[in-house]
């Protein structure tokens, strides 16, 4: 029966008369010629359609972010003012980095500009929500930063999409299409960040401050630099100066300045600096995995990293880094359980480093780096 079916099928397809065969050949030839001439254009159209879909999604994310920002501020200001106009203005805010043609003194200029931007954003929040406390102001500033990032991403993608469409440039469209998966991942991370900032939940980046808070718990703290607190904690017979950004509002503080001041105050009599921070995990690595390294593990524009490197080099203080691996989607969204659970492992490693590299009576600095939203001290 099977053989019969096969022979029937062969007969059906083989017994085409010459006219149909000729038509099929002409069609194939026409398809080949058209593909040679318009193949790339067709590919461009397909890619543009794909980008258009993602751009639409980015627009939805941007608009929803803006809506959340406006409604949260309205809710906090008890509907006294309409913040829409001001929020829209903040979302269009542009940061111009300092000139780097003459790098001399660039760090001071960079720090100044970052401070001005930060103050400006907080002032805007204060104007919109006059009754807000420090924690609320910090959280709202962080929320607006996330909404601003979403707006910027959407506008940049739209710019390249329109430019590619206008010029029909295959390479502009190709580059954009290649980058889109990463861009979409980042946008969704910012969207979940906005949700976390609105609710005041700790985020993945807060693992450094969480470790510091655990060490500082029950100890008296004082503010050493702007938005940065420090506590004296006895560990294994040594004196550890544990520092973190001041919480529980969304803050990163000035850890670089704090370490610089402390080292200058102690005239370099510090045996070791241990920096704890979240680090980008590579594909295949588990979130919450703890690794060690050498160097200053402080992200961001580089001002704090520069300050620590400079002062540590001046007094020849060794620097250890303890890194907690996280994916890009975990860094700014509510802290994953696996990441929160890594605190015990980090503390174990801190104790081991202290035991192995310092003597009793020594002084050390432990810095928990990151955004301290939802984490007090």
């Amino acid at each position, binding site marked *: 029966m099977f053989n*019969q*079916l096969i022979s*029937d*099928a062969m007969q*059906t*397809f083989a017994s085409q008369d010459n006219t149909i065969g000729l038509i099929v050949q002409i069609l194939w030839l026409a398809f080949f010629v058209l593909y040679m001439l318009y193949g790339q254009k067709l590919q461009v159209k397909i890619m543009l359609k794909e980008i258009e879909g993602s751009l639409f*999604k980015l627009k*939805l*994310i941007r608009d*929803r*972010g803006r809506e*959340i920002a406006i409604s949260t501020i309205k809710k906090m200001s008890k509907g006294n003012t309409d913040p829409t106009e001001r929020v829209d203005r903040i979302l269009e805010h542009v940061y111009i980095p300092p000139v780097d043609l003459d790098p001399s003194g660039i760090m001071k200029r960079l720090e100044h500009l970052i401070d001005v931007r930060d103050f400006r954003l907080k002032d805007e929040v204060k104007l919109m929500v006059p009754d807000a406390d420090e924690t609320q102001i910090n959280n709202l500033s962080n929320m607006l930063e996330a909404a601003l990032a979403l707006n910027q991403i959407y506008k940049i993608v739209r710019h390249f999409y329109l430019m590619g469409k206008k010029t029909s440039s295959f390479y502009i469209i190709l580059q954009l299409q290649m980058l889109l998966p990463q861009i979409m991942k980042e*946008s*969704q*991370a*910012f*969207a*979940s960040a*906005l*949700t976390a900032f*609105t*609710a*005041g*939940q*700790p985020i993945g980046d807060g693992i450094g401050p*969480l470790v510091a*808070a655990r060490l500082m*718990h029950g100890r008296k703290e004082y503010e050493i630099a702007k938005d940065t607190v420090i506590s004296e904690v006895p560990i294994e017979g040594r004196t550890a100066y544990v520092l973190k950004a001041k*919480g*529980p509002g969304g803050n990163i503080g000035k850890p670089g300045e704090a370490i610089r001041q402390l080292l200058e105050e102690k005239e370099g009599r510090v045996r070791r600096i241990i920096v704890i921070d979240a680090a980008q995990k590579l594909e295949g690595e588990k979130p919450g995995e703890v690794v060690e390294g050498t160097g200053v593990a402080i992200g961001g524009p580089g001002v704090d990293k520069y300050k620590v490197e400079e002062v540590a080099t001046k007094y020849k203080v060794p620097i250890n880094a303890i890194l907690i691996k996280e994916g890009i989607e975990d860094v700014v*969204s*509510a*802290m*994953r*359980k*696996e*990441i*929160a*659970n890594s*605190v015990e492992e980090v503390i174990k490693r801190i104790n081991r480093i202290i035991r192995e590299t310092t003597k009793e009576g020594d002084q050390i600095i432990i810095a928990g780096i990151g955004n301290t939203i*939802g*984490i*007090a*001290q």
Partner: protein
Amino acid sequence: MEKRSGKIRKPPFFFIAIITVLIILSLITMIQVFKTYIDTGYTDFLALTLSASALSLSIYMALQARQEPLKLGFEPPKVSTLIRCSKCDYETIREFKEGDYVLKETESCPKCKGPTFIYMIFRETEEKKKKT
């Protein structure tokens, strides 16, 4: 904030009607092909191929139309708060409430009446089922 909803997007009536007609026609054609084969021993491969393609395409389209709604990333995750007693081994987990933060002092311990505090705030992750 948005509420998480596991609702399936409802396809439009017109779309369902077209798919239904397509499936019915494909099935009728297949039955016809089968009947012809039984009666005459001849297999109409062209009709069989076309109806099978139409059937699979309509099933695929129906499944695509039932996909979950667009996720933008604003869906609030399940966040929990772990509370611990400073004096005894008491600990409890509850849903995150606005105003919670790590090291915040909370109500007294039901076991020893000692002070309790928020030890940890974390997000439960949804593990994707791996195909084996």
